[in-house]
């Protein structure tokens, strides 16, 4: 039915997305490259600029550097917004914003919540930056939904304030959505251990994709950043569904939207270790498991409890299988 048709188109676009992602990467110069480093040093008069990122340079500077570095070639058909959620991320947030500044984004929406470490002050005033600040913690992923509600772009890129990634690692997600994908996920499969050593969260992610007829997506999930969605996907899921990322993903898949994983960024390594997110059965793991149950429940509301898995009754199946 629609699933098979969908798969074909998705497969096609997935392959394309990957190719383009690779192509794009070769176009864009790495900010880590020696040349870029030297140039920066020249501009700054040989000041101590050994780190690839600097928290004290403005977002406008990033854009200027980007055009000098060749980012201007990243021409998107549609407009793009980025949503960055942060809760006490003063140390990393400027780096995240600096890298985002290099991308052709219409706006960068920073959703700060429950910050007590001066994160708000670290976000520079810039015409492209929209600061939303909440005194209380909003909880996991709520900031993303609030940011998405404010965003005006055709493409919305989601990022976390604690995860500085170079702009070149983010561009493929924007591109994939610009070229027709509705949800462009981070392909984390190259970084996963074999099934026997995967945690329950990873297995839950795989199970959701399997149950919704997308085994090719493996454990890729909207729970992980970076990912980008199209305005069409946002309209289909509604902003409130983004509070529970797997739920938004399930709705997108059930509606037959083009979900793909065009690029791999290793976020498992760089994730900040907090008291709540380590060890089996930790509160965050339990939260994400709950999210996946909620996601399947949402899909079941539309497709029925068995999600259209069986086409034969048990009796017919027994007959079909029992060939002496």
């Amino acid at each position: 039915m629609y699933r098979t048709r969908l798969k074909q188109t998705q497969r096609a676009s997935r392959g394309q997305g990957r190719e383009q992602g690779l192509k794009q990467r070769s176009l864009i110069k790495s900010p880590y490259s020696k040349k870029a480093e030297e140039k920066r040093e020249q501009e700054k008069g040989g000041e101590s600029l050994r780190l690839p990122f600097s928290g004290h340079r403005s977002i406008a500077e990033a854009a200027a550097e980007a055009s000098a570095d060749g980012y201007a070639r990243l021409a998107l058909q549609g407009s793009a917004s980025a949503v960055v959620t942060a809760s006490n991320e003063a140390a990393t947030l400027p780096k995240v914003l600096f890298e985002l500044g290099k991308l052709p984004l219409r706006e960068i929406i920073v959703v700060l919540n429950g910050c007590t470490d001066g994160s708000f002050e670290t976000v520079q005033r810039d015409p492209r930056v929209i600061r939303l600040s909440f005194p209380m913690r909003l909880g996991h992923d709520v900031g993303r939904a609030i940011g998405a509600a404010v965003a005006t772009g055709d493409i919305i890129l989601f990022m976390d304030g604690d995860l500085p990634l170079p702009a070149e690692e983010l561009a493929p997600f924007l591109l994939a959505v610009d070229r027709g994908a509705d949800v462009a996920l981070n392909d984390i499969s190259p970084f996963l251990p074999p099934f026997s050593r995967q945690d329950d969260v990873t297995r839950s992610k795989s199970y959701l994709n399997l149950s919704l007829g997308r085994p090719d997506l493996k454990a890729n999930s909207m729970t992980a950043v970076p990912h980008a969605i199209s305005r069409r996907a946002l309209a289909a899921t509604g902003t409130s569904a983004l509070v529970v990322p797997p739920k938004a993903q399930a709705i997108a898949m059930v509606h037959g939207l083009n979900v793909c994983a065009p690029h791999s960024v290793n976020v498992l390594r760089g994730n900040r270790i907090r008291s709540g997110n380590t060890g089996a059965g930790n509160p965050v793991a339990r939260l994400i498991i709950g999210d996946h149950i909620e996601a399947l429940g949402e899909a079941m509301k539309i497709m029925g409890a068995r999600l259209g898995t069986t086409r034969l009754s048990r009796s017919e199946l027994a007959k079909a299988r029992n060939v002496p």
Partner: protein
Amino acid sequence: MIRKRKNHVRPYRKKIARKKIVKRLTNHPDPLVSIIIPAMNEKTTLPAVLREAGRVHPRSETIVVANGSTDGTPKIAAKRGAKVIHSADPLGHDVGRSLGAQAAKGRVLLFIDADMVIPAKELRPFVEAVLTGTDVALNGYSGPVDRWDTHPVVVAKHVLNAWLARPDLQGASMTAVPHALSRRALDEVGPAALEVPPLAQAMAVVRGMKVRTAHTVSVGKLNPLRQKKGRTDLLASLVAGDHLQAVHWLIRERGPRGGYEDLGRLRDKVR
């Protein structure tokens, strides 16, 4: 000195036609263990399966649920002393088990398949576990997991156990044989639930039954390869659906998040 013994071959010896002694099962009048075996056209393996069943426990009864058989399976079962439930229509393993459970009189219900000969020695631990207080004694076999492209059914089994807060069960499932139930577990989940084994398992766990893996029998090697229709294994689709049905039940029982917390999300802040 080496003594060489001549081979005495009698060229025209008539074969002695011994009458094959069919060792009949004895069904105890007041059984402690009921062994339930759904069978559909299994005349080749059934005698051996029944032989092993007869060796499991001295106070046992063996119930063969012969369904949709055209090869005389019910006759063979009856001849060997098993109690036979007959159905002309094919039922599938799960419905067969449910029917057998309804007819069972024992305190322990052991479920095995007719197409797989498992030695009695490998079956006794399941009975033993239930006799010593376990309600659901599962096979510890989890399927092949040391790989990346794990079979969807294996993933489903692991995930369901994890979602039921029993990751220690890994991929153990009532979908697989052998497994044994206590009379208490049967009464708690009801024989109808056995038609959807993962649902029965979810119910047993949620309702506080003692569910554990009793012994590991690598049934993967014993399972006969079935004809695959198209490229998708039909059974895989059925079992995947069964697991979803268990998740659906969990949602109805424990709420949309299956009883998992929201970790202080302020959902009302999003419009």
